[in-house]
């Protein structure tokens, strides 16, 4: 997808920014922000949304925090796109340290790290809201994926509104405390995000989306995740978003629990399933591995 990016008048109040990597980058910028300790659902949304957006030429902006931020950066990188991290510390300080590798990947992929703070500034509580404001200022649009009441992501959304940027929010389960903030935004008039197509439509101004809104946006390459998995048909019953307890799975399929546990472990060894959130998840294509990396950071 090409098209002239809408002008984003850099706000006069925008502080001078220090950058590592390429900056400024051409193209529309979408900030994806949310909880530091998201549910697997929120993480999956952020990752897939970022991946789909970069494939449409969007630059994904986020804050290099744990959780939704990291998932957004990761999705953008996995999609082969550009992503920008706005830091709340000095440009030479990576916080949290767990995301040092991610910061490196962002730079390698041609993205940028930005900061408004002097070199060597350590993480300070008061700096992060200011960083959130900057994130909104350099973006054309802000998507909030998961935010509990009082989340820092809501500060970014407020800033975006005061800067005349579009704010969008991803709905969640009405039982989930981590979606309360998003639902409040939606109630207040934020646009609803179901997939990347919704964001792209908003970016290019009013454009009627005539396709099935449930369908994911087209991509050049086939979506491997949507093809039925080969191998153990147990995989068909696993979600890549909601962790499933082996006991529940055994009951549902009428299989003995020991067999289900053994088969799940085999899928884990093959890299097709992983553990998380107290159950088992299907591994989305493009992300191989054994899940340990995620468990520690979550």
């Amino acid at each position, binding site marked *: 997808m090409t098209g002239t990016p809408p002008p984003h008048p850099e706000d006069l109040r925008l502080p001078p920014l220090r950058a590592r990597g390429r900056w400024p980058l051409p193209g529309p910028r979408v900030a994806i922000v949310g909880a530091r300790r998201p*549910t697997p659902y929120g993480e999956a949304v952020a990752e897939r949304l970022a991946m789909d957006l970069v494939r449409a030429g969007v630059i994904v902006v986020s804050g290099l925090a744990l959780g939704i931020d990291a998932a957004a950066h990761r999705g953008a990188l996995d999609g082969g796109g550009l992503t920008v991290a706005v830091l709340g510390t000095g440009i030479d300080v990576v916080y949290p340290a767990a995301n040092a590798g991610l910061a490196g990947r962002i730079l390698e992929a041609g993205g940028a790290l930005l900061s408004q703070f002097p070199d060597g500034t350590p993480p300070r509580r008061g700096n992060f809201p200011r960083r959130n404001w900057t994130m909104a200022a350099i973006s054309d649009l802000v998507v909030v994926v998961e935010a509990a009441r009082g989340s820092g992501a809501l500060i970014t959304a407020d800033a975006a509104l005061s800067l005349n940027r579009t704010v969008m929010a991803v709905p969640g*389960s009405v*039982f989930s405390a981590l979606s309360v903030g998003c639902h409040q935004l939606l109630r207040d008039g934020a646009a609803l995000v179901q997939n990347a197509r919704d964001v792209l439509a908003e970016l290019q101004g009013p454009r009627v989306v005539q396709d099935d809104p449930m369908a994911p946006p087209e991509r050049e390459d086939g979506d491997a995740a949507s093809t039925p998995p080969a191998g153990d048909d147990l995989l068909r019953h696993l979600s890549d978003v909601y962790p499933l*307890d082996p006991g*529940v799975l055994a009951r549902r399929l009428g299989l003995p629990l020991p067999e289900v546990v053994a088969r799940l472990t085999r899928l884990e*060894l093959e890299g097709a399933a992983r553990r998380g959130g107290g159950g088992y998840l299907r591994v989305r294509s493009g992300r191989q591995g054994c899940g340990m990396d995620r468990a520690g950071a979550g």
Partner: protein
Amino acid sequence: MAFTAGVAPPRPGPYPALVLASVLGCQVHGLEGRPVEVQVDVSAGVPGFFLVGLAAGSVREARERVRSAIRNSGLPFPLRRLTVNLAPAELRKEGSALDLAIAVGVSLAALGRPSPAGAAFLGELALDGQVRHVDGVLVAARSLARHGVRELFVAASDAAEAALVGGLRVFPASTLAAVVAHLGGEAPIPPYQGRPVRVEEGAVEPDLAEVKGQEAARRALEVAAAGGHHLLLCGPPGAGKTTLARCLPGILPPMTIEEALELAEVRSVLGELPAGRPLDWTRPFRAPHHSISTAGLVGGGPRLALPGEASRATRGVLFLDELAEFDPAALQALRQPLEEGRVVITRSGGPAAYPAHFQLVAATNLCPCGWTGDDRRPCRCTPAAVQAYRRSLSGPIMDRIDLQVSLPRTPLEVLAAEADGEPSRLVRARVERARRVQLERQGGLNAGLGGADLRRWAPLRPAARSALERWAEARGLTGRGFHRAWRVARTLVDLEGGGPIGEEHVLEALGYRLLELAA
């Protein structure tokens, strides 16, 4: 010899000029009793009562109780120089259990009667001569029997406890006067007639039938019971971790007589055995609060260390809820009992050893507030706090836990609809069979198998070995982690009746490990 006026001159009788009596008592130290010989010397001299032989304050007070008890029992108290020696002199004597032995010795000496051979006396005296309960009678009785004692006099309330030791004639002594009359052949005390000890069934409470859903945790509990593995339950508040842990004693095999006696000895030392019914056939379940001190957990005390929760839980279950909240030093102290099945505590009175053959069930949340991974409430913990919390879960205790299983929260509506689970009785039958397989093969439970034992007793089929090795490579499993999964796989096969370990067993065993926690 010159006497000042007012003091009676030496008289002939009722005492001979020099009397020596010697009777046996016992000093309990840890779960060991050492016979104490009470030697009484009545000699000419200024009347007085001297107690020697490293007697602590509580024993020196015996003089007053003994004097009053003898007088109030209508027995003569020698108005001469009375020296009581507690031998061996290097052994520190504590408590009031020697009262009866001292009083009997003094009375026999005063009456000029011979000392009984092969008899021992245990009990505290009241001032009126009544014999009272003392702690540790079972431990003392067992040690005395080993030292050749054949007759034991104890308080009536302690008779059942002492009678658990075979080969002893136990005389329930109500008063000092009754004991002296018995020894003089005037009024024999009928020996205690205990029923022969038989193995009984323990109580099953709560029953596993009450646990609905939670298939994975139920399975892990059964495997833990079968192989003697320690178990970690991990899940949000309200998932049923405590109920599951409480079910473990009920699916373990009934206690053997030796196990019941071991437990009774610990309780005896603590003075917690109910009078008249000393053997309890229900396996203990101990759930100390996480604020417990090291001494409370493994044992301690100022001079002679008393058993702690680890020993109270012997042959049963020690449940540590909110494992990460425990004092790291206290958990560190659990290392010895986890490795050796016993605790040795050294205090000024010397080292004391207590059994601690407990099965550990630990429970934890995944973060300090407990709500991580639960969508009902957001987790309020900072990532650093979560990291610190999980770090505190690693360490020496986790190294000993073979099984780790995560419990999902079961929604109330599911709980209401779900059928009852399998009752404990059926699970226990499988556990007993699996234990028989292990005992016949290697003479112990799988939880105690080390690397060399595993190679000998737990051969892996080629596919099983390759699965274990692939996992170890992918996850960076340590040698200990490797052995833990191997041991669990051994138990899974033994639950099916034994045989070599297949790939499916190894894969299932690997499923009972939590990757979020240190492997």
